């Protein structure tokens, strides 16, 4: 180390890191023999699916691990100084000053009982020799730099006064306020909406570049990596399986896992194609296979992979991969490709003339979020009504997939729950095949699949009983027929009959979602509402579930309503898309039309906010502002405060959906003129202000 000059010393150097967690009767190793360097000013992305050990690697670098986890081997060097052997107090000094941290959940990263200013000033004064006044000035400057409007006034705000995006800005300000040499960002945008994610990524990137701060960016999102990172390390089951430059990783990934991971991400430029999928799921830490941990899922695996662990071998171009099949030049021998599954059938199954299967007619759902009467009288406040869904009309034809997209709080889940009759609409009605769903009791013709595969299955029931419940409830099958049907359903969703005896907690997230699907299918429904069915899953598993749902849809002639925040997933699934903002539909359009010619400025903003993996990030500028609180929505068009083309009328008059010639309908009178000009799909639509 001493021989090297200052600028070639990596900011962070991790060598052979091994973390152990002792269990009752076993020791699991969530991080095993991980080595990497981060050069000054470099952004290293660490990607991997859940359970890969990426967050624990970050935690081990930051400092003493929470017992019982322990660093059981390896070294961590920060600027040529070994830090994993330091005592608690020495490490604390370094941790705050030289390493900044940004975590996933900005709410828990801030102390709810202290103002933003107190927390910032405390951090600054702990690590820098500044007096109170100087620290305060610095805190204001920091908040200003991270883009918090009226920074001085924000000092006295408590974290709950700020929105999620604002809070994450404050966390970034705290991480950067001591001018650290390294920032560790663990899923910094995962809890945020796409439009906010784009802002935060921009901020992190520009701030760190200006200061020359190195970043270790831990995320599962390849889009974020493509936009931000210089180099990428891919982790699988506790080990680094590939590391290399970001372009290399995107254009020509070497490790079969990286390859599969990249291929299974739904892209905006692919329509209605079957996603490439990796079979199986990440092994549990207690059962990591011998040899290469990836071999059970790998289509290139040979006997050597099952027996001997491949080490991370440097390649000629500076990258490294841990795979027996990758030669020194980085080429994988051409092995037979996994059997090509035919693409899915086109839209021909739609019958336009039939009456709609589901007819959502001007439904609204208002929630009363007023304070209690006495408090209202004392403060002279009126009632506060939260219009979660406000006058939405939509019809779904038999065999069609209609997707509803929007950011959190736009009312899409509330709408889904009204469609299946869980919530009764405040006004308007939902008709299923001509009957009001509120009047349908004990029906089995429509079902719902929920977002959280951990919460949507009763943990105390065996899988077979869970799937048998709808059969028994509706008398679809009785006696011995039940078990036979359950086995059939299990196999239909890609599980085995033996899985029926197991409890939900014995399955992975993806498998549980399969159980939920089997359970919904047991009712023999015609229509299924899917509320973010894959947003809790890893990408490779998401691809499996999406493919499964498309297959089942074709096989069983299902009609789907698909709720999602992810436009790429929606593009892959839907025939027709509705975009929601603040409880209202702002645009409905055939899927191809929506992506080729987005008409509402909000739709365009959403599309622009999505990082394009191939082109190394977003094309357009980051969106402005954040969605308003639905309990306190702006007057007129809800989107006008963030809209680039808003005119005075937008503040007053609320636009309604107006049908366009191409089957689309848009709730924006202003954008009509600009939409008339054909937009080139490869360039962002130029937003022209019409005044």
């Amino acid at each position, binding site marked *: 180390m001493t021989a090297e000059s200052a600028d070639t010393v990596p900011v962070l150097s991790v060598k052979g890191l091994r973390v152990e967690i002792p269990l009752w009767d076993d020791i699991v190793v969530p991080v095993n023999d991980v080595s990497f360097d981060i050069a000054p000013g470099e952004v290293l992305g660490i990607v991997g699916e859940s359970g890969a050990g990426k967050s624990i690697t970050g935690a081990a670098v930051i400092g003493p691990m929470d017992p019982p986890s322990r660093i059981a081997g390896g070294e961590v060097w920060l600027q040529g100084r070994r830090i994993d052997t330091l005592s608690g107090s020495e490490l604390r000094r370094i941790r705050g000053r030289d390493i900044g941290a940004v975590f996933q959940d900005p709410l828990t990263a801030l102390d709810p009982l202290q103002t933003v200013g107190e927390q910032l000033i405390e951090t600054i004064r702990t690590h820098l020799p500044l007096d109170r006044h100087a620290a305060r000035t610095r805190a204001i400057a920091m908040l200003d730099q991270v883009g918090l409007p009226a920074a001085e006034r924000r000092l006295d705000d408590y974290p709950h006064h700020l929105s999620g995006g604002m809070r994450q800005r404050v966390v970034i300000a705290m991480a950067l306020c001591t001018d650290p040499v390294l920032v560790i960002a663990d899923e910094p945008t995962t809890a945020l909406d796409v439009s906010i994610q784009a802002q935060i990524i921009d901020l992190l990137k520009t701030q760190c570049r200006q200061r020359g701060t190195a970043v270790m960016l831990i995320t599962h999102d390849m889009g974020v990596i493509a936009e931000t990172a210089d180099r990428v390390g891919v982790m699988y089951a506790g080990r680094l399986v590939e590391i290399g430059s970001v372009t290399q990783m995107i254009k020509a990934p070497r490790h079969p896992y990286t390859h599969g991971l990249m291929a299974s991400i739904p892209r905006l430029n692919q329509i209605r194609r079957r996603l490439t999928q990796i079979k199986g799921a990440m092994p549990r830490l207690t059962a990591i296979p011998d040899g290469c941990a990836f071999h059970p899922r790998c289509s290139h695996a040979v006997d050597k992979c099952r027996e001997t662990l491949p080490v991370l071998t440097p390649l000629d171009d500076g990258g490294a991969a841990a795979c027996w099949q990758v030669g020194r030049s980085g080429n994988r021998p051409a092995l037979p490709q996994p059997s090509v599954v035919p693409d899915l059938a086109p839209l021909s199954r739609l019958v336009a003339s039939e009456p709609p299967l589901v007819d959502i007619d001007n439904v609204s759902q208002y929630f009363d979020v007023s304070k209690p009467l006495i408090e209202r009288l004392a403060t002279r406040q009126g009632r506060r009504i939260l219009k979660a869904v406000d006058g939405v009309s939509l019809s779904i034809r038999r065999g069609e997939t209609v997707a509803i997209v929007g950011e959190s709080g736009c009312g899409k889940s509330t709408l889904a729950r009204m469609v299946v*009759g869980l919530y009764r609409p405040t006004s308007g009605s939902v008709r299923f095949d001509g009957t009001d769903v509120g009047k349908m009791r*004990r029906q089995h013709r*429509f079902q719902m699949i929920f977002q959280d595969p951990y*919460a*949507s299955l*009763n943990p105390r029931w065996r899988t077979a009983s869970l799937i048998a419940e709808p059969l028994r409830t509706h008398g679809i099958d009785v006696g011995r027929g039940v078990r036979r049907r359950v086995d059939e359903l299990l196999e239909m969703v890609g599980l085995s009959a033996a899985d029926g005896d197991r409890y939900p907690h014995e399955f992975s997230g993806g498998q549980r979602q399969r159980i939920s699907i089997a359970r919904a299918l047991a009712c023999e429904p015609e229509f299924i509402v899917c509320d973010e069915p894959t947003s809790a899953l890893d990408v490779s598993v998401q691809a499996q579930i999406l493919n499964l749902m498309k297959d089942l849809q074709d096989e069983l002639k299902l009609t789907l309503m698909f709720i999602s925040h992810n436009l790429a997933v929606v593009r892959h699934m839907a025939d027709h898309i509705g975009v929601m903002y603040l409880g209202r539909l702002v645009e409905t359009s055939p899927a191809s039309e929506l992506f080729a010619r987005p008409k509402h400025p909000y739709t365009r903003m959403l599309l622009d906010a999505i990082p394009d993996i191939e082109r190394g990030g977003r094309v357009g500028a980051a969106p402005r502002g954040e969605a308003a609180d639905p309990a306190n929505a702006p007057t007129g068009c809800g989107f006008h405060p963030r809209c680039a083309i808003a005119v005075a009328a937008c503040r007053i008059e609320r636009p309604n959906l107006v049908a366009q010639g191409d089957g689309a309908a848009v709730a924006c009178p202003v954008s009509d003129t600009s939409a008339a000009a054909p937009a080139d799909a490869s360039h962002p639509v130029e937003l022209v202000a019409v005044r």
Partner: protein
Amino acid sequence: MANVDVGPIASSATEIGAKIMREWRRWRRRPLVRAFLATPRAMFAALLLALFAIVSVGAPWLAPHTPFDPATVSLIDSMTPPAWLADGSWTYPLGTDDQGRDILSTLMYGSRVSLLVGLAAVLLAMTVEITVGLLAGYVGGWFESVTMRIVDIQLTVPSILLALMIDGVARVMAPREIHHNLAIYTIILAIGAANWPSFARVARSRAMVEKNKEYVQAARIIGVSHLSIVLRHILPNAMAPMLVIATIDLGLAVLAEAALSFLGVGMPPTQPSLGTLIRIGGNFLFSGNWWVFVMPAVTLVLFVLSVNLLGDWLRDSLNPRLHRAGIKLA
């Protein structure tokens, strides 16, 4: 020699055996079981409780004497000290009381009564109030407000006072001759009623949490009836905290019974519980015959202690926030 033919019966027997072994292994792997097997404190308490249970249930067969049969009791043997003291005899290992009854046997019979009263009171409280609480939490609205206010009011009445009241009312209402037979039911009702509110409140809050979970919504869309949702989905998932309360309340109920009997409104001397025995013993505490008092008192302490130890452990290990720390306990 040819291979031994196992035959269909033997093979199905090994199959069943294998199945039992599989279930046992699955059971052994359950976190609660593993936590139990790794906590000596819990195992000690459970062992002691098991001993109490065996002794109580088997008292008529296990007890060396039948203390409440006047024919077998002799006044000559009264106030014999425990066996290890001078004048003691191994006929009466723990000595005798003023009427010459064997204390060990009275303790066994007394534990039987105490345990019966405690268990019955807790079961009564559980069934009544879990039903009320679950319904209140699930249905909500005015039903919830009304039932929960009743529960709140009940909480403000001291439990001993409530028990005295119920006992008093029962004594007035029922004819004199059956007072003695009635005692056990009044006391179960009295103690059960005193324990209701804790179950009702926990059951309600659990039901409120569980009913908003997605698996309940899923069941609703599937078309499962409300009753079935409450009984088969919510109740099993709400049981864990209730079991903890039940264990801790069992100790409290036995103590309450002892207190009532000590006050003279509990079990009659002809059918003594541990509390009654302590009351009787209290009369001889200062006359040198301490064992008449100390033996039932120690028994009661041991019993309540083991129930509480087990309840404490159960609370710790069922607490989801401590689940991760299951590792820590190892």
